Structure formats: structure tokens, C-alpha cells
């Protein structure tokens, strides 16, 4: 232990120190359950870039399941979700140098990669059965979750989304979960493209404001 901010696999926080470059000599352990600090995120990404097994494990333990879940929901099969999960982590390795914790959270960065890859695949592949539209109000509670971090993240997400009207939830779900563009929605619903864009923007801003109240840093 060299004083670097590390967290052990048992979930106990260890003393944090000033951020310093990841050298590959000291493992970054599987994380605690709360949100990661920016310097912890940076260290995990440096560990990922160097192929450190502990860093990969820590990242997977924290984000593997949400990424897989998104793949399953968007792509509709376990095989596609597993492939997506692998692609997300290899893409994160390739883009690791572009991750800047000062510009946003690691969770957002990774889930954006996951979502973009999933939507690309959804829109690209013919013959893929699009999953049933997933509306947030259809999302059941998930008793039995044992990862406190995931529960916290999901609770916060559900609270943020609760600020939306049903129409706004449906609109965002069509774009986010089905990959429909504003133009496609406008054509399907017979409303002006500008109206769809305005509604998308308005709904996202509502979620953003709700998120601001829960941001840990």
C-alpha cells in the first residue's frame, strides 16, 4: 500500500491520497459501493489501459452488469449482450486516453459508449428482432439486488425520470431504447420534426435538472 487512493474488494474504504499516475505496480481494487471519486475513476482507467487485472475486475464489477443489461434490452439476446459487453470494454481501452474525469463521470462515459455501440448495431443489422419497447413505467422493482451502488444508481435514475410526463418518457424511450431518430418519430407520429426535437430537448433538460440534485460532486 503506497498511500494511493484504493478501495479493497471487501468494500472498506482505504485512506485516499493525492492523485498520481497509475504505475501498474499497485493494483486498483474492486470498488466500494458509492460513487467513485474523479481520481479513482482516473486510476481505474489508467489501470485498464495498462491491462491491470484488478482494474479490469473493478470496472467490470461496477459497470459490467449495467452494460450487459443495456445490451440485453436493446439487442434482445444474451449472446448479443455478451458481445456488446466485451466490445464496450475493449472500446473503453481504445478510448481510455480521451476519458477526462473533469468532464464527466466514468459511468456516463461508459454507458454512452455502450449505448452508441448498441444503437449502431440495432440500426445496422437486418434480421435482428427489435426488443419490445421498454418504458420506464413498466420497469419493475428489483428486489434481491445486492450491490448497493447499483441500487443507489437505479433509485436516483428512477427518481430523475419520474419528473417526466408519460409522453416524455415514451418519447425518450423510443429514441434511447429503440434507436429511433427525431425524423423517424416525426414521420411516424405525423408531427413536425422541429416539435420532436424541441420535446426531446425539453425532456432531457428536465432529467438533467433532476440529476443535478443528486450529483455527488
Amino acid at each position, binding site marked *: 500500500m503506497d498511500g494511493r487512493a484504493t478501495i479493497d474488494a471487501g468494500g472498506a474504504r482505504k485512506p485516499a491520497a493525492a492523485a498520481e499516475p497509475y504505475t501498474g505496480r499497485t493494483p486498483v481494487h474492486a470498488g466500494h459501493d458509492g460513487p467513485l471519486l474523479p481520481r479513482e475513476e482516473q486510476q481505474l482507467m489508467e489501470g485498464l489501459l495498462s491491462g491491470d487485472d484488478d482494474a479490469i475486475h473493478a470496472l467490470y464489477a461496477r459497470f459490467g452488469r*449495467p452494460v450487459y443489461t443495456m445490451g440485453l434490452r436493446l439487442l434482445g439476446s444474451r449472446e448479443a449482450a455478451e458481445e456488446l459487453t466485451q466490445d464496450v470494454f475493449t472500446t473503453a481501452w481504445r478510448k481510455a486516453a480521451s476519458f477526462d474525469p473533469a468532464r464527466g463521470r466514468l459511468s*456516463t462515459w461508459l454507458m454512452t459508449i455502450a449505448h452508441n455501440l448498441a444503437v449502431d448495431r440495432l440500426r445496422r443489422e437486418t434480421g435482428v428482432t427489435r426488443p419490445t419497447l421498454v418504458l420506464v413505467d413498466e420497469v419493475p422493482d428489483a428486489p434481491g439486488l445486492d450491490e448497493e451502488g447499483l441500487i443507489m444508481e437505479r433509485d436516483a435514475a428512477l427518481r430523475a425520470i419520474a419528473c417526466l410526463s408519460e409522453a416524455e418518457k415514451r418519447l425518450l424511450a423510443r429514441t434511447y431504447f429503440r434507436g429511433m431518430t427525431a425524423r423517424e418519430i416525426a414521420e411516424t407520429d405525423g408531427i413536425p420534426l422541429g416539435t420532436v426535437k424541441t420535446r426531446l430537448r425539453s425532456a432531457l433538460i428536465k432529467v438533467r435538472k433532476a440529476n443535478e440534485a443528486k450529483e455527488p460532486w
Partner: protein
Amino acid sequence: MVTCATVRDLLPEHALGVAASLEAAAVDRHLAWCAACRKESRDLGRAAATFAFALPPADPEPGLEDQVRRRVGDLARPTRRPHHGRRMGTVLLAAALVSASLLGVAIADREPARDQVPATNDRTSMSLEDFSDLIRQAEFDDSEAFLGTLAPTAKGGRAGGSALTIASPSVDDQVIVIAAGLSPRERRLPYRVTLRDAQGHRMRVGMIRSVDAGGGATVGRIVRGSLIGFMYVVVRDANGVIVLEGTLGAPTALLSPSPTVLRGVPRQP
């Protein structure tokens, strides 16, 4: 030049991951220098990601973590990147695929709108020039690049394409093939792209399972073995009929002002 107003109009779709490739690329270029729009983009992206965390979690198979660790470990293994070559190679492949996507090619990116797909000849010419730019910009160390156009056979209709291979004794070799004007008919799909050497040995590059509105697609592969000698590129349809073929050569002609290799694929003004 894209204005902030235009970018703000595109940001919601960009944040939700459904912006068309060309629009997304324009937004990304703008965000690279505009801090105000970048902040807006970050906030909207964070809002969009909220949906991901609202889903009820599903449990992956226990072996998935091992697969992830193995794949990332393979990428990061120091012996596979003796200097910066491996990363540069990866960056090069990624850059080429990005270039391809900017040209409206579908495999590495989502389909652009039909009216955003350049004409076949224009795209082929553009992809060759993009390849040339990549070759010029990249530090190859001991690598060799080979480049060429793909011409349609009698069954190839209006198809066209270009291909780039990079061979190196110290880093992974790679090949990128960009095709355009391929028939989207189901009976022609999937297309299979292979390399062949003078002795008739074949190396698979990849399979084109779908094409975009302009019949475009890109396949790329990082090869653990050597691509030296694999100078013939062949694209076959699902029936095994060759629709595109071409021979790769040293890119010196392309890097000079001489338009030798570009002949036949005039660049549109």
C-alpha cells in the same frame, strides 16, 4: 462551418445516440473547440445515460468477466506493442473506420440518411484519399502500407471500393476494405471479403452482412499473422460470385501528385 445554434439543435439526438453519422461527426468537431456546447453536450449526455441506469438489472453469465479480461488483456499485453506501434496501428484502423463512417459507410457506423450518401465513385475516391492521408500522417516505423482500388466484375454492377493493408514485423498487421455500390438484395448478402496471395492462399477479412443506402460497407481486421504477399482483394456475394476485385500496391503513387491509381474514380468537385 457549423454554428452553435445548429449544434444545439442537434445535441439532443447526439446525446441520445441517434444522430446521423455526418451530423454526429460535425457536432464532435464543433465540441472539440466550443466549451459552451461541450458543457451542454455533457449535461444532455448525462441525462440520456440516466435511462440506462433505470433498467432492472440482468445477470450475465459468470464467464463473461473472464472473456472481458482476456480481450482487454490481449489488447494491452506489452509484448504486442513493442513501441507505440500497436496503439498506432489500432488508432490507424479506428481512424480509417471513422473515415469510412464519415463517408456514409455502414459497417462501422449507423446508416446515414439516403441523401447523405455520396455517389459511389466519389466515395471511393474520397476513401482512397483518406487512406493516403492516414498513411502520410501515421508513424509507421517499420511498417509497409499497400493500397489499391477495387473494380467491379461483370456481376458487380456499379460497385467500387478501395482497400488498405498495413504489414509490419513488430506490430499486428491490419486490413481495411471499403466498398460502395453493392447490391442490397438479400440473395446477394452476405458478401465475403478475402485476401489472396500469389500462391492462392486465402485470408478472410470479414463478412458484409448489410449495406447502407448507397450499397456501402466497411470491413476491417487486425491480423496476428503476416499480410505480406496478400495483394489480391476479392469480394464475393452470397452465391460465391466475385463482384469486386483489385490488386494492392505500394502507396507511393498515391502519395505523389500522380493520379495513376485514382484514374477511373474521378473526384467530384
